[in-house]
């Protein structure tokens, strides 16, 4: 029996203390103590709302989500940042996107950072001319098949029309050129940027090539960004199972693959936060059903593979999948048995992403570790509470500004992949057809769920819970480690990884084992050892 957790309500009050009343009220809605008394229902949380000015947030901006996250890992598109230099520079390979061009000569523009490097003149008189010139230069240099234009804050304000420039240059050069209105001030976080990016891909890229990839079992992978080579191991795994990957959005991706993404027979959604709406749109327009998958965690990987096999209803495929799972699980269990005794019962916290904080809990569970607090950086309510909550989410001014595309079945290319009867049985199965569970469902009772955690709250949590490991990003890493607590970066993986699929799970076990048990921590005397006394901390059970 696991030791009882400290009273999370008290922790919550403790965290809120530092804020002025109004800010405190707002933050209180974004901090929820998990309850599991009503099956299928999670407590309501406030999410996807603006960060209060002056509160140090983990969040980035719309541009970061659009350019860095979604289009960052696509190798054969030239991305031009339209704006002053900073935004382009900071998004230059910083997400550690990896890609594998088929030959050394194949197109790969990811290592380039194009920017119009706007100067005062363009701010005053407009930057469209310079943008045209930049597009022409990029074209002359590389003759790429596509060019994307990413707007930074000043662009929308000075009234540059990047879409008009894109249209003009598309006609002039005869290649696919499209723009993104992803100015940093739009929306409340990078989530807005994901949406803007995906909408444009849907409008300008998906559906341009109707030639399906060869293969019997064709799937699309949505919301996998190839951090640390995750997409590579997933690709290899699917390949071993005989499953064809038509396109991944957008890890290790190409424009060519995006163009025929709609020819898959099943879409698998991994990070639902960043892309569930694309899965919906492809389903509506082209008839490709989508299910939820997750390749983080060995169990979850096995489950996802079985879902895919079950969807295709093919005995041979199922057999092959089972064989792969059996082979891999042997290695996985061996690694688990080695690492688990040293990690068992230790506490973890995850504050990252829009799905990662959920998915990585499964890996910790496999190590015998407990997640006591978790939250997302840019999630919406459905990521916490489950997709069923979508109709209940109030649309506010910030979400209204993000375009919702109106999609109808394509008269020529809509092709239902399953009949009504089959759809019904899929919907009744545990396949999560058009569905995903929220993070809270998978968390223990009395754990703390915090949306858009602030720097201050993070510090207090560390002091109060003294977790064995804290998962976040580079901005938090060194503050966490000043507490004598290891911080695992789940954005860049600390240049480790891959952590996806079976191979990734094994990597993760060893990594966490090392982090949690490394000798170096013994040299740092943590504050609570010095000041044991009648403080709030002292009242908590040390697991």
């Amino acid at each position: 029996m696991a030791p009882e957790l400290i009273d999370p309500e008290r922790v919550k009050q403790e965290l809120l203390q530092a804020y002025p009343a109004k800010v405190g009220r707002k933050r209180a809605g974004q901090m929820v103590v998990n309850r599991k008394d009503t099956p299928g229902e999670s407590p309501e949380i406030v999410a996807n709302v603006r960060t209060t000015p002056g509160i140090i947030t983990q969040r980035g901006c719309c541009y970061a989500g659009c350019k860095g996250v979604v289009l960052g890992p696509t190798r054969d598109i030239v991305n031009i940042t339209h704006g002053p230099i900073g935004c382009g520079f900071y998004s230059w390979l910083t997400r550690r996107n990896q890609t594998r061009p088929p030959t050394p000569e194949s197109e790969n523009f990811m290592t380039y950072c194009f920017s119009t490097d706007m100067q005062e003149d363009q701010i005053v008189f407009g930057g469209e001319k310079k943008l045209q010139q930049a597009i022409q230069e990029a074209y002359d240099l590389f003759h790429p098949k596509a060019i994307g234009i990413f707007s930074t804050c000043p662009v929308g304000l000075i009234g540059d029309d990047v879409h008009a420039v894109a249209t003009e240059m598309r006609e002039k050069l005869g290649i696919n050129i499209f723009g993104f209105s992803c100015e940093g001030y739009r929306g409340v976080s990078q989530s807005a940027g994901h949406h803007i990016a995906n909408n444009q891909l849907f409008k300008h890229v998906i559906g341009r090539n109707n030639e399906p990839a060869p293969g019997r079992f064709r799937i699309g992978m949505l919301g996998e960004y190839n951090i640390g080579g995750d997409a590579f191991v997933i690709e290899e795994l699917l390949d071993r199972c005989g499953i064809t990957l038509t396109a991944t959005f957008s890890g290790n991706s190409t424009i060519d693959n995006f163009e025929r993404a709609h020819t898959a027979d099943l879409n698998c959604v991994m990070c639902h936060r960043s892309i569930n709406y694309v899965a919906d749109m492809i389903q509506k327009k082209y008839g490709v059903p989508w299910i939820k998958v997750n390749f983080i965690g060995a169990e979850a990987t096995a489950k996802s593979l079985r879902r895919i096999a079950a969807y295709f209803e093919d005995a041979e495929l199922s057999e092959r999948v089972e064989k792969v799972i059996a082979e891999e699980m042997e290695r996985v269990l061996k690694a688990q048995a080695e690492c688990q005794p040293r990690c068992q019962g230790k506490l973890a916290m995850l504050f990252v992403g829009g799905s990662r904080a959920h998915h990585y809990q499964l890996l910790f569970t496999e190590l015998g570790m407990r997640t006591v607090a978790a939250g997302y950086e840019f999630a919406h309510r459905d990521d916490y509470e489950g997709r069923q909550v979508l109709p209940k989410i109030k649309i506010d001014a910030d979400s209204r500004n993000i375009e919702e595309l109106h999609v109808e079945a394509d008269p020529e290319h809509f092709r239902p992949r399953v009949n009504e009867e089959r759809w019904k049985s899929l919907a009744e199965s545990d396949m999560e057809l058009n569905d995903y569970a929220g993070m809270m469902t998978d968390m223990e009772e009395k754990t703390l769920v915090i949306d858009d955690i602030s720097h201050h709250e993070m510090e207090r949590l560390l002091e109060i819970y003294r977790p064995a490991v804290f998962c976040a990003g580079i901005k938090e890493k060194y503050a966490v480690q000043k507490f004598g607590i290891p911080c695992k970066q789940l954005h860049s993986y600390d240049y480790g990884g891959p952590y996806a699929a079976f191979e990734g799970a094994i990597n993760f076990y060893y990594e966490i084992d090392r982090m949690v048990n490394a000798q170096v921590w013994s040299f740092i005397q943590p504050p609570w050892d010095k000041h044991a006394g009648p403080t709030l901390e002292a009242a908590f059970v040390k697991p």
Partner: protein
Amino acid sequence: MISALSNPTKGPAFAASRNSCKLCAPLGACLAFRGFEGAVPFLHGSQGCATYIRRYTISHFKEPLDIASSSFGEAAAVFGGRENLRVGLENVVRQYAPQMIGLATTCLAETIGEDVPMLVRQVMGEMRGRVCPVVHVATPSFSGTHAEGFRAAVRATVDVLAQPGPRHAAVNLMPGIISPADLRYLKEIVADFGLESILLPDYSETLDGQAWDEYQRMPPGGTPLDAVRRSGAAQASIELGAWGDPERSAAGLLSARFGVQHIPLPAPIGVTHSDRFFAALERLSGRRTPQKHRDERGRLIDSYVDAHKYVFGKKAVVYGEPDLVLGLVGLLVEVGMAPAVCATGTRGVGLRQQIVAMAPELDSACILEGVDFVEIEQQARAAHCDLIVGSSKGYGMARRLGVPLVRVGFPIHDRIDGPRLLHIGYRGAQQLFDRMANALIEQSQDNSPIGYSYM
């Protein structure tokens, strides 16, 4: 020694930047503000700027760096960010109880033309209870780089805080963007002359801290604000890596407003530049250079003599902030290397003029201002360079050219020792020389069929 290149001043005139060799102005400002005790950097504009800058700077320093933001949304972008600024400043004051807030503007606030000084006056006037000085600096990236943002932030801090007073013997030091290790060494040198130094700024502890016994929200260190106040009555300001209009530097301001003697010097990188710095300290202190430093200089010269054959005549590519490039060129020239390509992303610094004034033989070298890495790489390839000296951003180029990269300056995000690298003074020259010579030796060793292992 240096072959004339096809296009010695500027590559083809590209409108776009391809792999930029400069960062944005607010980054420089945040870095500078972090060097004042109890200061919290605050960016007025989009929250993404604070996040990007934190993300980037932290990967170099590997230390926490809190930067607050007024987190503009669409409404603020259209109607102005007064309310965001008010709430933001109030929250920062409440959470950090800072001694100072360093308020830099982002492109967004600058584009909509926010009257920040007025807003700050209003907002701070309304704030009850604790208040602290707010130092505002305008840092639109469309008219300046990180190097300029840094200088502007130091100048703005001095502008707000420095006071007149009876002249005292302390020396103001404007070090420019150098490593925390450099800053610590700088303090040591000046102290060895028996002088008090006022570093403007000093992030040697705040951005290269220790493991703490107790968590501290505000990292210890930074130049105390009282010292900044006293900078107006210091006996002199030594501005290292001085370039451009003195009116835009803190030392220029202190000279014009309070008559503090302004001593502009190149960044003390290499023997020649360091000698000038030590000479200035001798003059100001009335003391000879202490034996410890004379010994270090002696050992450095001895190593130059012993090892110059490994570097002599080698063609180097140098890039970075203007002051760093100028300093490095001094070092390269004095050991007999040929700085074939000298480049900075900053514009309007008179880099050619300054380099040629220092080393007339470099008149035919490729000296570039306002350039990007694609252009630097083209010139490096044309020059058949042997060594690249600069930030981690040159790694791709080094890899493609098959030439070693000696990492210096900022940003160094693919090695662990960025904040601990020494560049300045005799000790820094020793490290740089050793690292450059070793890089070249390693290259020829690796490429040798025998793999020589004795000197």
